[in-house]
């Protein structure tokens, strides 16, 4: 049996990479530690190739408990992409953002990625919960990675407490589901549950648990402090991969279990989406620290993605996956600049970006493109992604929600423009000079910017996702 054709191959490769990095780290001289980054990158690359190799197949393992389908494949690509960017940024950090014991950092990162990759493939409650914990617990450690730093410690502690609470709620909800249906299998649950107060309670508890993961209102409170305190590389990873993992979990629960009833509870989704994006946007306006700012921006982005749950699978799944794909590149472009700027100058307030377009026009341009894409300005990919999501809401008849979402985009443009104003309209500080940049980082910026610009104009990615997922069914464990 060819190991590369096993549907669990990508997970195995990533886990293996984690161990290889950890062991190499033990025996390597200090001076040569920088090769750990490329090793991790190669592992991620191999895993991505393996995922692409498996797409668009649908098959299962372990008696239907582990399923690889196109949706799972694309989610895995997002996690791997997010991890790849994180590794590159961590590897290229030279000064302030340089993390201690990078070898361990990479391996812990790999383990969270494995957890996330399992979430989207799991087809029963227990696997689902375990993979979620595997994805989350290493993240607590990552958030508190800078041992001496008070803020980082605070971030880790807050994250643990809120995370544990969320896990508890979630577990309770999943337990109730098990009690109601007598099975841990998602398909069986979706077929047996009937409307009852206990189901509502289960639903509410699960929603609260997931709400924490994807920073949905009103479970978003932890985000700002954790985003600010965690090392910036980790913040970047949290904002992209962790959010996608939460979305993956939400896919599993909402589409997998409640898929048939989803259209009846559109009002609830609409309300949550409205609250999440509006709160994220309004609070982002008053932030001064760019990491906190990005935390609220990420909250509002979660609100837009939730809109996708208003439609039937065949339409909403491609749009949501496409938006997540774009979001990975866009947010990583912005965070790349934030990490780079913080690393070279040690500054992370919005006002510190003043005059960047004079000293480093290319960097400022990358940032501007990233921010405009987040705000949904055409012809950038963020616009196209949002357009498709809004279209789903319109199709479901929520025209007022489209208006709310689009007005929210305008509000978000207001605060993204604050940064652009600093970069383009304010004169640089007197002693500001051109900052050096490594070739690898420059290349990464170039590629992400190109991706942000081109993904919206070139239809192939969306069409590929669309054709592969159009016949997707959320619970496919009846396959042999």
């Amino acid at each position: 049996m060819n190991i590369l054709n096993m549907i669990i191959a990508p997970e195995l490769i990533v886990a293996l990479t984690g161990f290889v990095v950890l062991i190499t780290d033990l025996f390597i001289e200090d001076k040569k530690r920088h090769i750990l980054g490329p090793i991790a990158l190669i592992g991620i690359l191999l895993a991505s190739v393996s995922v692409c190799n498996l797409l668009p197949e649908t098959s299962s393992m372990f008696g239907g408990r582990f399923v690889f389908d196109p949706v799972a494949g694309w989610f895995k690509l997002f996690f791997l992409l997010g991890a790849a960017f994180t590794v590159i940024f961590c590897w290229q950090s030279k000064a302030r953002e340089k993390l201690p014991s990078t070898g361990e950092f990479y391996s812990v990162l790999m383990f969270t990625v494995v957890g996330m990759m399992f979430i989207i493939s799991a087809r029963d409650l227990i696997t689902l919960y375990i993979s979620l914990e595997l994805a989350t617990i290493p993240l607590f450690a990552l958030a508190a990675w800078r041992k001496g730093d008070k803020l980082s410690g605070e971030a880790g502690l807050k994250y643990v407490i809120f995370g544990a609470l969320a896990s508890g709620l979630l577990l309770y909800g999943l337990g109730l589901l098990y009690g109601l249906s007598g099975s841990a299998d998602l398909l069986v649950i979706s077929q047996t549950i009937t409307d009852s107060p206990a189901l509502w309670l289960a639903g509410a508890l699960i929603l609260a648990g997931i709400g924490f993961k994807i920073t949905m209102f009103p479970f978003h409170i932890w985000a700002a402090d954790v985003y600010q305190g965690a090392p910036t590389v980790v913040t970047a990873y949290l904002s992209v991969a962790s959010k996608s993992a939460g979305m993956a979990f939400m896919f599993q629960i909402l589409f997998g279990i409640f898929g048939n009833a989803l259209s009846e509870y559109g009002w609830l989704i609409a309300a949550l989406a409205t609250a999440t994006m509006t709160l994220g946007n309004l609070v982002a306006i008053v932030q001064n620290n760019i990491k906190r700012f990005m935390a609220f921006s990420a909250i509002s982005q979660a609100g837009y993605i939730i809109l996708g749950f208003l439609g039937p699978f065949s339409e909403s799944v491609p749009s949501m996956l496409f938006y997540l794909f774009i979001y990975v590149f866009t947010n990583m472009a912005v965070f790349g600049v934030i990490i780079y700027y913080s690393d070279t100058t040690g500054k992370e307030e919005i006002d510190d970006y003043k005059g960047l377009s004079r000293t480093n026009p290319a960097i400022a341009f990358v940032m501007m493109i990233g921010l405009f894409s987040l705000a949904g300005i055409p012809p950038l990919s963020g616009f196209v992604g949002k357009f498709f999501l809004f279209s789903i809401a319109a199709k479901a008849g929520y025209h007022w929600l489209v208006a709310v979402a689009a007005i929210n985009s305008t509000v978000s443009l207001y605060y993204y423009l604050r940064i652009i104003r600093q970069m383009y309209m304010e004169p640089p500080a007197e002693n500001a000079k051109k900052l050096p940049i490594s070739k690898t980082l420059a290349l990464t910026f170039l590629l992400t910017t190109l991706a942000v610009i081109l993904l919206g104009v070139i239809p192939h990615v969306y069409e590929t996702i669309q054709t592969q997922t159009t016949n997707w069914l959320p619970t496919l464990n009846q396959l042999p």
Partner: protein
Amino acid sequence: MGLVSWLFILPFVTALAVIMTPAGRSDLVRKIALAGTSLHLLLTGYIVYKFIQVATFSGEGVKEALITQLYLVEKITWFESLGIQYFVGLDGISLFMVVLTSIVIFTGILASWSVVERSKEFFALLLILVSGVFGVFVSFDLFMFFMFYEVAVLPMYLLIGIWGTGPKEYSAMKLTMMLMASSALILVGFLALYHGSGLETFDLIEISKVHFPIAFQNWVFPTIFIGFGVIGALYPFHTWSPDGHSSAPTAVSMLHAGVLMKLGGYGALRIGLYLLPEGAQNWALFFMGLTTINIIYGAFAAIKQKDLKFFTAYSSVSHCGFVLFGIVTLNMIGVKGAVIQMFSHGIMTALFFGLIGMVYGRTKTRIVTEMGGLAKVMPWLAVCFYVAGLASLGLPGLAGFIAESHVFLGGFIGNPWTDATTMRVLTVIATMSIVVTAVYVLRGLGQVFQGPLKEQFKTITDATLTEKISTGVLVATLAIVGLAPWFFIDLIEGAIYPLINRLSLNANTWMTF
């Protein structure tokens, strides 16, 4: 790529060329920009020539047409599963608007000859903005239309924020926020049309074959009309306009008042009136009331202004009111007037703002009362200013007269769906604005150019060569349209028939074509 695509590709390529020029070569930058826009003018001329060759202006079917006939069409599938196409083409109205934009950007580049501070970014942004404007005028796919619309609006923030004067950051932000919020309404309307048609396509022509239920039209029409109305300075959503125009640098004011505000009228006509005729019938009187306020309010507000730019900005609010007023008269002559007014106002305001920039560059003030007798030292600019002023008050022989007379005639003729008496009363009220316009134009011109020349202005020189070309082209255009309007009327008439014919169509026979 076909001919029409080059209309928006060429400015974009020019913008890229501008960005590529080595630092510190602002002379080279503006030469490249000028070369690009001159080439564009030639391209537009060639396209007009081609259009006249292929288009049918009279004869069988033109007067009875219900579906817009497009020429020089290019259609490529884009996002296949969502029914999004790359779909560009031209009809008479869009061609007319393309000609306008091409002239305004050419003169705008000449008028910003003296911009040296960060000139690379300035010209690049200016060209990207126009590229978006051209895109809107030639797109017949709603997705593309919306995409280009936002591309056209956003560069304004940086253009005003960086190179503007006065409270530029406030104005830039206010303008961007109001226009972006209005585009939210447009988006709601577009998505409603897309899903409401049930065709799964953004193709404007295909959607136009569908008859939407009256209740649907009744809420989508005002959404779209107000959405576009904001950029067309519809009262009470015009407030971004005076602030924005007064803070913007010369070329940006020219483009914004001259071309960008036309996107509002164009969108209201092309999407609102064309796709939702019955919605238009039901809302016509309401919007006619608003636009009458526009016309009168803009004119009275202009009287009070001391700053030349505010003065022109309010006069723009008044004149853009004519465009929207003409559209909601819902008859051939009124809509024709609206389209000509878009063109004539575009050229006229571009001339106004260009001249204000040139005068300000010499006197360092824009306050009317601080100037005086300037005609003695700058005769060329003074003459041009007078021509613009006279066009603005509707002097026969200039473009403004043709446009305004059509609009008022249209208002007086009325339509079967609106109460004729109310319409006539509103038209009479709107017509009175001409008198008010005459007051503020003549008084303003008198204060600036007549009377004793102030001591500090004695050393001022007249227009340079680039400025003469810039203003000369605009003055000539105003005169040509004013003296030989039939050519332009022929051009747009064929495109207006489908818009008007749909209004009187019986709903039952709708789906048969």
